[in-house]
Each structure stands twice: as structure tokens, then as C-alpha cells.
């Protein structure tokens, strides 16, 4: 068990070091990255099965007992997130190798990518507020480099905004850690769970809101989302796919973890979260409708869907949290495959602008199918996974009597469908109005290099499977939600092994 919890963090860091040493040999670098991420997928799958079987498990690094030492914890929620994240990282890496561009021209890509993987894994597995800060920094620093890889003018411009806003969030996180430590004398999440209950109610609410703001910046919640649609589209498309699929979701994970574990039921800010969730949904989708660029529409859609995840959390019921877990997993898979398809569209059409693209349903029918399936899934059409997630959210909302948020969710789903059809019309259906500004690649029947199309297709298939054969995942989400709502299991596993 020790190895299962530590290796997902240690392996990619060692891999990154080896990758730097192998800097001159591209094939060696690729072999290292694929091996490391492949092993991580297997490890996290084994971890998921064992955690689901045995319940929450904790490991104390170096054998120091809980509140003092460095704690690594896996419960069902973090295990399922880790597994999905590892699969995404591997699929996107294969895509990046197949794509002419970022990965081929930069020696540092592979090693930085592995550091990002380590940061994501550490964020999911850490049981300690300060180590969560360190894991976030590891992940974000890697993301700064990946985002500005190439150093083009617009990348530097949007990268600057992204780095500055992330650093402000980090300073705020550090401040929160300092305040939490001076109020409670501990940063261990399980220990905090007990100590937080002893604080006066006002202080607890202040901490809850502070943590919501800190992670809300990373998760792109309203009104802290403005950096995301500006920053994501300028990065190379595999990088955008990883960011879209994983980074915001790590923020969502941190919000869910801290809001459920640290605060006793009477001081949970459920109404605040529901209001923020509703505004995030609406503002995100309205932004998406106004855009004229494939990646920007998709980026605004990320913001909108973060609102759906927050909706399930804001309800603070088992059904709501189960829906959040399911929706988050669905969204990681669907969004990553959408951005990979966005990269294929740029590869085939030589542009990302709707006015410069057209008629691709004839020139690249495979890409059209790869676009349509996750697009309908995001809009929530049955039998795809988005439908299951949205049905669960609406069901949970009605069960708790929160009708305004349910109405907002329904309306936003319809508008999401509209924004998805806007891309469909602009890119695949109607003829192009202007000539593309970039390079148009010659493609065969597949619509791109096999190494780009196959990982995308596999992710799309995984998304379909999650909808059609979704029952096991839904049951797992329900068990994870029950764990989240009752923090005693988590606290017991860490403090009294």
C-alpha cells in the first residue's frame, strides 16, 4: 500500500530527471515518459480497486505519526480522480508526440510534462494543507512553462496574465495557511477537521470563504474566471487539452475536499456556493456564445461546466456530491477529447476561427464524428455521459428543493448545445468565408496523423462507455460521496490507523 500511494508522485519526478539527462535523444525521452505514465495508469487503477475495496487509506512518510509527519491519503474520490488524470495524461502525451509542433521542437517538453503529472498526483494524494500548496506550485510552475513554450508574442501576453493571477492566488493561499495555522496549530487536513469545530463560527466562515476564493481562482469560478478564456487558447493544443481537462479540476477537487472535510455541517456555505455555481454556469455559456474561435468557445464552456460541478457540492447531499464526482470525471474525459479534436481541426483547416473554416464534414469526416460525440455529451444528450451527470445533478437539486439552480442548469444546457452547434455550423457544415491564416496539412482518410487521431478516438469512446455503461461509475460516485459527507472515515484512517 505504501508504494501505491507514494509512487504516483515519486515516479514522474524521477522520470523528469531522467528525461533531462536524455535531452539529446528524443526517442529515449519519449520512451521514459510513456513508460512512466503507463506505469502510473496501472498503479492508479490498482489503487482505485483496493481503495474501493478497503476504504480510505493513509501513509505517513518516514514513519512520523500523523499530525507531525507528511501524510498521503487516498479515498475513493481522490483515487478515481487520480486514475482518470493518469489516463488523460498518457493519451495527451501520445497525441503530442504525433502532432507536428510543441513536443518535437522543445527539449524540455517531456520533463516539464512529467513534473506537471507529479504535481497533479500530489494534489490528489496529499493530506496536508501546506503540501497541497507545494503540489499546486509544482503543477502551476510546470504549467507556466508549457503555456509559454515557443515564446510567441500572444503566448507571452496571455501567459503573463495567467502567471500573475496564479501567483496572487498562491500568495493568498500562503496567507490562508498562515492564518489557519495560527488559529488551530496544525495544517494536517484530518487534524484540522476536528480542530476547526472548536473555533468560533465567524472565524470558520472566514476560513471557508478564503479557501473558496483561493481554489476558486484555480477552478475558474465566477467572478474569478476571467483569466481562463484568455490564457488557454494560446498554448499548443495538447497542452490546452491537459490544462482544460485537469488543472481546473484540481481546483474543483481542492474545493470539494476542503469544504466537506474541514467544516462541520452547520458552518458550510451551501447557499453561497449555489449562487456562485449558478452565475458561473450562466456567465460562462454567454461568453461562449459570443466567441468566434473554436478554442475560445470551448474555454468559456469549461467555465460554464465548473458551475455544474459546484452545484452538486452546494447542495451538500449524498446525491448532489455523487453527481459532482460523476460530472467531474465525465467533464475531464469529454473536455480533453474536445480540445484534442480542436487541435485536429486546426491541423486540418489551418485556423481556429469559425469564419476561416468550413466544409470539414466532407474534407475530414472522421474529425467531424470525433467532434460531434463529445459535443453532444457536453450538452447533455442521452445516452452519453453528460446526460447521466446532468440528470443526476437535476435530480439531486429537485430532491433538495433548490429550484432556481435546477432551472439555471436546464437553461444553460440548452445554451451549451447552441454554442456547440455554432462550432459545428462554422467548422463542419457551412463553407468558409475567408482563407485560413495558418498551414493547411494534407490529411488522409483519418483526418490527421494516426498518433493524433487514435488517442482522441479512444477518449471519445471512453466518454461514450461512461454514458452507456455508466452504472459501475455511478455506484462508485455514490460511495465516494458518502465518504465525503462523513469525514470520520478519513479522520480515523489518518489519525488512528
Amino acid at each position, binding site marked *: 500500500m505504501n508504494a501505491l500511494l507514494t509512487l504516483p508522485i515519486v515516479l514522474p519526478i524521477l522520470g523528469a530527471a531522467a528525461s533531462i539527462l536524455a535531452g539529446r535523444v528524443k526517442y529515449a525521452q519519449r520512451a521514459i515518459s510513456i513508460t512512466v505514465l503507463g506505469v502510473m495508469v496501472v498503479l492508479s487503477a490498482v489503487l482505485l480497486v483496493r481503495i474501493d475495496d478497503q476504504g480510505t487509506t493513509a501513509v505517513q512518510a518516514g514513519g512520523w505519526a500523523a499530525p507531525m509527519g507528511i501524510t498521503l491519503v487516498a479515498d475513493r474520490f481522490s483515487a478515481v480522480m487520480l486514475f482518470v488524470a493518469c489516463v488523460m495524461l498518457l493519451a495527451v502525451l501520445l497525441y503530442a508526440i504525433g502532432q507536428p509542433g510543441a513536443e518535437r521542437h522543445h527539449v524540455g517538453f517531456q520533463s516539464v510534462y512529467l513534473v506537471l503529472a507529479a504535481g497533479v498526483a500530489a494534489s490528489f494524494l496529499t493530506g496536508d494543507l*501546506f503540501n497541497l*500548496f*507545494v503540489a499546486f*506550485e509544482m503543477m502551476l*510552475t510546470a504549467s*507556466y*512553462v508549457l503555456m*509559454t513554450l515557443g*515564446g510567441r*508574442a*500572444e503566448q*507571452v*501576453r*496571455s*501567459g*503573463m*496574465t495567467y*502567471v*500573475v493571477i496564479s*501567483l*496572487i492566488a*498562491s*500568495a*493568498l493561499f*500562503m*496567507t490562508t*495557511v*498562515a*492564518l489557519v*495555522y*495560527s488559529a488551530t496549530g496544525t495544517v494536517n487536513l484530518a487534524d484540522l477537521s476536528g480542530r476547526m469545530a472548536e473555533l468560533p463560527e465567524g472565524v470558520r466562515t472566514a476560513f471557508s470563504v478564503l479557501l473558496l476564493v483561493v481554489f476558486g481562482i484555480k477552478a475558474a469560478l465566477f467572478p474569478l474566471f476571467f483569466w481562463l478564456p*484568455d490564457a488557454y*487558447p494560446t498554448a499548443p493544443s495538447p497542452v490546452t487539452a491537459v490544462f482544460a481537462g485537469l488543472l481546473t479540476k484540481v481546483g474543483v477537487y481542492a474545493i470539494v475536499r476542503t469544504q466537506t472535510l474541514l467544516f462541520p455541517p452547520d458552518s458550510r456555505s451551501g447557499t453561497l456556493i449555489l449562487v456562485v455555481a449558478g452565475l458561473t454556469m450562466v456567465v460562462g455559456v454567454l461568453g461562449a456564445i*459570443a*466567441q*468566434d*474561435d473554436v478554442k*475560445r468557445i470551448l474555454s468559456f464552456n469549461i467555465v460554464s461546466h465548473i458551475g455544474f460541478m459546484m452545484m452538486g457540492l452546494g447542495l451538500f447531499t449524498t446525491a448532489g456530491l455523487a453527481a459532482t464526482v460523476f460530472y467531474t470525471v465525465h467533464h475531464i474525459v469529454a473536455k480533453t477529447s474536445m480540445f484534442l479534436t480542436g487541435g485536429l481541426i486546426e491541423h486540418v483547416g489551418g485556423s481556429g476561427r469559425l469564419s476561416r473554416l468550413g466544409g470539414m464534414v466532407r474534407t475530414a469526416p472522421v474529425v467531424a464524428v470525433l467532434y460531434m460525440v463529445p459535443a453532444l455529451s457536453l450538452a447533455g444528450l442521452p445516452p452519453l455521459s453528460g446526460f447521466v451527470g446532468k440528470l443526476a445533478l437535476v435530480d439531486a437539486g429537485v430532491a433538495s428543493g433548490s429550484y432556481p439552480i435546477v432551472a439555471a442548469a436546464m437553461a444553460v444546457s440548452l445554451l451549451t448545445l447552441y454554442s456547440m452547434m455554432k462550432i459545428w455550423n462554422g467548422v463542419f457544415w457551412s463553407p468558409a468565408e475567408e482563407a485560413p491564416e495558418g498551414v493547411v496539412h494534407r490529411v488522409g482518410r483519418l483526418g490527421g496523423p494516426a498518433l493524433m487521431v487514435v488517442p482522441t478516438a479512444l477518449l471519445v469512446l471512453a466518454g461514450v462507455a461512461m454514458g452507456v455503461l455508466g452504472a459501475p461509475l455511478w455506484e462508485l460516485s455514490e460511495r465516494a460521496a458518502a465518504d465525503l459527507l462523513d469525514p470520520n472515515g478519513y479522520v480515523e484512517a489518518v489519525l488512528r490507523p
Partner: protein
Amino acid sequence: MSVTLALAAAILFSVGTWLILQRALTRVIIGIALLSHGANILMMASHRRGRPPIIGSGDPSEFSDPLPQAFALTAIVISFGVTVFLLSLAYRSWVLTHDDEVQDDLEDRLIGRQGVLDKEIADEQAAIAEEELEQQ
């Protein structure tokens, strides 16, 4: 927590916030540095004060709490690295544009002008229609 440290943190936070809101990249970077210094000072102020925590140098109950010092040290190293990255990014921006200011988001401008353009076209068409009426 001593008043001096609290005051120092407050001043660093306020000056940092003001600098981040400037348009020049160098000021933004200095602002970020001050903001993280403020957070570190707050961290240092959040613990029990006392003698240096070295085992064998005295009674452990008189020691200061070493944990926040370790936290602050980690945070300082991280912010050091990231500041260097920011500086290189600002330098790259200067090489590309010969300007130290934050550039505008072009795409955003285009979207913002959409409505205006539509109105301009409508006005123009109204003017043309009016001219035609006069000619008749």
C-alpha cells in the same frame, strides 16, 4: 503576533496590490514579490516565539515553533524561482514588442467591436436608403 510584524505585512500587502494594478510589467513583478513577502511575514508571525529550536540547547518548552519557519522557507524558494521565470517572460515581452506594458487581448477587442460594427453597418444602410429616397 507582534504589532510590528502585522503592520509590516499590511504595508507589504497594500503596496504589492497597488503595484500589481499598474500597467508596466516591471512594477507588476515587484508587486508580486512584495505580496509574497507579506504572506511570508504573516507566516512567521503566526507561531510561538522563543529560543532557537536546536535539540540539546535548552528546555523544549521555551523553543520557538520551527514549523512556520520551514513553511516560509519553502515558500521563499518557490517565489524566488517563479519571480525569475516572470522576469524572463517580461524580458521576452520586451524583446518582442520593445515595450514594458501589458499588451491588450486582441481577440477580446474583436468580440467587443462586434456590436459596434453591427450598429455602424445599420447606420450606413439607413443613410444609403435615405439618399435613395431623396433621389427619387
